[in-house]
Structures are given as C-alpha cells and as structure tokens.
C-alpha cells in the first residue's frame, strides 16, 4: 500500500456499533424485513471526507413554532398533552448542538394524517403529527405534542404497534444519521412488538423507552417524558491498517 492511501485510511471515522445494540436488517418476525433486508454482507469502508461531513441546517431553515404540534391549527388537538424533551449527545457524552430533529406520530386515537393509513380511527382536524426543531448549544430539545395512540397493523394476527413517536436526527456527519422510534414506559404492547424486539440487547432496547419525568411535567398543562439520544462518536485514533 502506498503512503498516500495509508494516509487516507487514517482519517478518523465514526465508531462501529457494539454487537446486539442495533437491529439486524433481517428480523423475520417483522414481516416487511424479509424481502427488503440485504442478503449479502455490508462492505466496510474507511472514513473519507464524504462520511465525516454532512448537511448543517440553520435556524432560518426551521420555524420556532414547529416544535409545538398542538398549535399548528385553529384549535387544540384531542388527547393527553405531553412535553417530550431530552438531550442529544455522542458516545463520549459531548453535546450535539444545532442539529435538526424531525418527528412524526399518530394522533391520540392511533391514526396518522396520511393517505395510506386506513385504520378506522378518527382523524383530528387539529393535529397533523409532524414537528421539527434544532437542538440548542447543549444538545437539548423539547417538543410539545399529544400522546400518540396504539394502532393495529397487518404484521401478524391481532398485531398492535405500541404507542411511539418517530425521531429523525442528523448529527454532525453523514455517518451519524439516525432514525428511530421513542416508546412510552409501561406499555404492555412492547413485549409483543417485532420492531422493538429486533434489538437483541435488552439494555439497548430499553434506551428507546422514554421515562416519565416530574421535572419537565408542566403544572396544570402537560406531562413530561424524557428521551435522551446518543449518536455515534468519532474514533479517538485513526483506524490503521
């Protein structure tokens, strides 16, 4: 290997996940994964500029009101008002400030405001279910919304998704992109959910369950749930061949 190539490989990338802490692509109980999961091994590549850079969204890209999903229409949505807040950090506990978070969810009755959702539960004219914000300099965020309902789906007989909120987070680089789902504590549907159970490691799985939180519960207004997010950390030392 020539010297230049070796130097390229030595660009510090992002750390690989620990076994069992991320879902496998194929998780047969989740039927949709069977024909969509890759069947060949991924090819591991060293970090290049492409993976360690990524888009930055400015405050001009995101409206300040987009973080309150209860104030996007003329009236208040039905359901239990909640404040979901937390902090985005990397594996080394460094805050990820100024990064874009996008969320989407069903309404309190368990129905998405989406043409493909045919669940026989009412739409709420005062709830669209989408929100965005940028984390503050300390990586903190807070959305105001309503608690989403559980809903049936076609995966298996009598299948119900536990209540959840979808989260999309960018982080500092193309390699740190994460899309996940936040669940609620004590939900009896979790144990039977093939999507949540696709994560083999129990501790990792439980990191997707938010915690009820008195500290962020707003008196007379909304219940608080806390959900912290950890993105990949950068390698301390460059990968050497």
């Amino acid at each position, binding site marked *: 290997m020539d010297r230049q190539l070796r130097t390229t490989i030595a660009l510090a990338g992002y750390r690989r996940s620990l076994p069992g802490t991320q879902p496998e692509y194929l998780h047969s109980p989740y039927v949709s994964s069977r024909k969509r999961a890759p069947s060949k091994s991924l090819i591991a590549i060293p970090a290049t500029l492409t993976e360690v850079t990524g888009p930055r969204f400015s405050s001009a890209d995101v409206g300040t009101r987009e973080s309150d999903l209860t104030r996007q229409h003329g009236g208040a949505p039905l359901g239990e008002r909640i404040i979901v807040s937390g902090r985005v950090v990397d594996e080394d506990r460094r805050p990820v400030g100024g990064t874009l978070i996008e969320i989407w969810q069903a309404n309190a009755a368990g129905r998405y405001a989406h043409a493909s959702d045919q669940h026989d539960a009412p739409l709420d004219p005062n709830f669209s279910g989408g929100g965005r914000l940028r984390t503050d300099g300390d990586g903190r965020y807070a959305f105001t919304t309503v608690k989403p309902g559980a809903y049936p789906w076609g995966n298996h007989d009598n299948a119900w998704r536990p209540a959840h909120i979808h989260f999309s987070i960018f982080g500092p680089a193309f390699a740190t992109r994460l899309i996940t789902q936040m669940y609620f504590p004590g939900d009896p549907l979790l144990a039977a959910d093939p999507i949540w159970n696709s994560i083999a490691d129990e501790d990792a799985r439980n990191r997707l369950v938010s915690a009820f939180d008195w500290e962020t519960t707003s008196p007379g207004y909304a219940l608080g749930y806390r959900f912290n997010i*950890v993105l990949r950390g950068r390698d301390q030392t460059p990968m050497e061949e």
Partner: protein
Amino acid sequence: MPLVVTPSQTVGPFFSIGMQPVDVSIEPGGEQLIIQGRVLDGDGNGVNDAIIETWQADSAGQYADRSSRGWGRVVTDGSGTFQFSTTKPGRLVGVGDVVHAPHIAVTIFARGLLRHLFTRIYFPGEPSNANDHILASVPNDRRATLIARPSGPNRLEWNVVLQGRDETVFFEC
C-alpha cells in the same frame, strides 16, 4: 465508559408527515444531471415507500461548509421510482492529497429496513473510477451496481436492489 448509541428503528410508511422532500440546490455552471431509478425488493417489486437522502460535493469537489447545500431528499412513487436533479460533483481531494472519483453518497430508508442503508452513486465513463479506493474495495462482479448508466442527454439511471443476486453494494461506514 462510552455511552451506547441509540438503536435504529424503521422509518415506517408514514415518514412524509415529518420528513419533507428537499431538492439538492443546483449550482449554475456545473454539469446538470437528472438521476432516475427504482428501488426494488428481493422479489423485484418496486418499493413504493422508500426515502432516499443524498450528500455530495459541488462541481469543484468541495463539501458545503456549515450549510445544507449538496444535500437532498426524495421519495419513491407507487412504482418504486425516484428522480432528482443535481450538479455532477467534482473529483475530491481527500486527506493526503488522495483523489476520490466523483460520487454521491446515498442513504436509503424504508418500511422493512430496521436500519438505513449506505451506498454510493459513481459516474459512467469517469477515468478516476479506476483509482478510487472505495470502488477498489468492492468485488469486481458487484462494482457495476454502484455506477449509474447513461439513459439520455444529461440523464442517468441508477437502481437500488435491496436483496438478491443483483443486490446493490451497501457499505458499513
């Protein structure tokens, strides 16, 4: 002790409520291209609920500094087809002055994908492809899955096969 990274979960079928499509911002003067393709599952059926994000350098081979220029997001239609317009990225000079062939980084999300997939689009007839060390790390017989095909004036076709014999190369990065 380092923290454990939050596990990924599928984007599901309803992502358009929260994730809006975004055009890659086009620079005047560069080589304008339309890239079109389909996302196909293991049975060869179009994936009608995939979302594709792209990240690339500009025509001079520079990544945007503290902006979202060069980033875009498209969704597939009922037949699994997606299309986006962009400017062909330039060759990149990386750490140690190593030259990388022009490429677009791609992330694919869909219902059924518990984690997203990383891949790359390379360009046909590009001499620097021969020296690109990422392409070189891909077995010969699978390399073609990463290289778009000309399909008309300023048009390229690039398909994503999620599973099976002609499966697209996906990277762990």
